[in-house]
């Protein structure tokens, strides 16, 4: 059998993968199969948006983690033997993909950033390594060729009229012995940094949580959003991870990025490489951020940020 498979644990990423998967399936002249958790309506929606077949994953009990689908998905894939299997690179998706790949004894390209098909019909996939300092191209010699695809890499596939497809409902997965005891939602971030035109980014050069007010004021004056580095969100917990930029967080494409007390380590900078203009304020003239910046101020942010607020207000 041949085919292209997709799976996402979230609907929004599922419809993005339909775009990615449809593209690959068309180039290879293959069928597109979507693994979807939900009901018949969602299955029909996936077919209308490009799937030729939907394998419907039955609902889990309240205490079952979504990872309980792993053995089932691996067994189905072993039977059907698809050529390509793409999984959304959500946190859950990344774990599930690695586990499915282990069960299928195949390789997996993690967080694939670009994908081409060579003359032999094999995927040539790009991914970042060394924190973003290098781009590696890989292919996979085993079956299926697996990759995880970062959210927002593709547009959502549109609904088309007159599309037909099969729906097959799979059996409920066995409980794994793992139990979800509690689920906690996260605090809503103030704004969406991935959509912001102007971003002021707070780094660990900021000493106290109160001092973020000054960074917020600068962002306000510029009409932008406040973002942060990983230490600010993960270590100090001053801002949510939704606001964090970088390799293990969000990639942003603002017209203007202004880093305040950000050292500019590669894992952070890789998230702003598409920014129009990059500016930085740092007291260390040798800080790596200056190598990635267009305009840099060397100096104490506690003196410079208030001065910038005044000057930009004019």
């Amino acid at each position, binding site marked *: 059998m041949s085919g292209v498979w997709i799976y996402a644990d979230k609907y929004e990423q599922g419809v993005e993968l339909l775009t990615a998967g449809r593209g690959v399936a068309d180039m290879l002249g293959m069928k597109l199969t979507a693994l979807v958790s939900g009901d018949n309506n969602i299955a029909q929606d996936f077919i209308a948006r490009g799937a030729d077949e939907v394998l419907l994953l039955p609902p889990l009990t309240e205490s079952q983690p979504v990872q309980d689908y792993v053995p089932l998905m691996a067994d189905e894939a072993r039977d059907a033997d698809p050529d390509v299997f793409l999984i959304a690179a959500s946190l859950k998706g990344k774990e599930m993909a690695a586990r499915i790949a282990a069960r299928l004894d195949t390789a997996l390209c993690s967080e694939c950033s670009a994908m081409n098909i060579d003359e032999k019909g094999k995927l040539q996939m790009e991914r970042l390594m060394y924190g973003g300092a290098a781009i590696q*191209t890989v292919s996979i010699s085993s079956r299926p060729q697996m990759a995880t695809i970062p959210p927002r890499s593709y547009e959502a596939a549109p609904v088309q009229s007159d599309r037909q497809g099969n729906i097959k409902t799979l059996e409920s997965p066995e409980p794994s012995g793992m139990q979800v005891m509690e689920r906690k939602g996260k605090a809503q971030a103030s704004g969406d940094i991935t959509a912001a035109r102007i971003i002021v980014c707070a780094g660990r050069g900021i000493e106290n949580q109160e001092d973020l007010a000054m960074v917020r004021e600068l962002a306000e004056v510029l009409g932008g959003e406040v973002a942060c580095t990983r230490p600010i969100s993960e270590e100090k917990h001053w801002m949510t991870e939704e606001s964090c930029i970088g390799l293990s967080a969000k990639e942003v494409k603002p017209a203007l990025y202004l880093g305040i007390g950000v050292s500019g*380590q590669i894992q952070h900078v890789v998230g702003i*490489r598409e920014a129009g203009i990059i500016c930085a304020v740092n007291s260390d003239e040798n800080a790596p951020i200056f190598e990635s910046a*267009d305009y840099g101020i060397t100096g104490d942010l506690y003196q410079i940020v208030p001065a910038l607020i005044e000057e930009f207000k004019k």
Partner: protein
Amino acid sequence: MPNIICCFKWVVDEAYIKPSSSGKIDLEWAEYKLSDYDRNAIEEAVQLQEKYGGSVTAVTVASSDATKGIKDALSRGPEKAYFINDDQFENLEPSQTSAILAKVIGDQIDYDLIICGEGSSDMYSQQVGPRLAEKLGIPCIAFVNQLTIEDNRIIAERKTDDGLEVISAPLPALVTVLPDINSPRVPGLKDTLAASKKPVIEIDLEDLGSEYERLLIDEGLRAASMERNCSRFGAGPEDIKAFVEAVRKTGVIDRG
């Protein structure tokens, strides 16, 4: 009392990676380090041992270049290490690393809990932990930021895209940990001296008795240059004015 294994990787320090003029990556002058989040994995294992007793064993798969890494890992508290090393273990991909770890851990080490970092600093594929759990046939909880052991079960709080989940799983189990789970201790001179006296069990490819084929094929590597030509400004009032002027001129700011 749990027997805990922590896995670690000895990696190129990415701070030393500079693209050469040809766009290639030059590793000749690179320094190596213990992968950042594996420090959290080791620290967590040692903290659990301080709380519950038991043992901590550090394990790595590498070429013999990682000898320094063994000492570094042992200086952070584990009482012994398995150094699975062979000249052929250079640049392994995750399916190989996890299969080799599973072989050694499954055959030779008593364990209740395995702790890995969420991903390595060099490749950051985030695969070895989950793959290892599958190969050993034990539960896996990835992206954990809090961990306790109760009645032969592990209770872990893990990050998801929607927030957090508290998961309970029977031991033996594997977890991968996030950097915010703890602050790794900085080993002192005494710890470094103590590390050189700790037992290290060396295993090579021949001892393993199987082949581990590469399935993820390298097709090329190029530097991702992010260098820009920075105009530098000082901190004086005139500099601030000139900076703001320069930024305004680019037209990225709507108002003003």
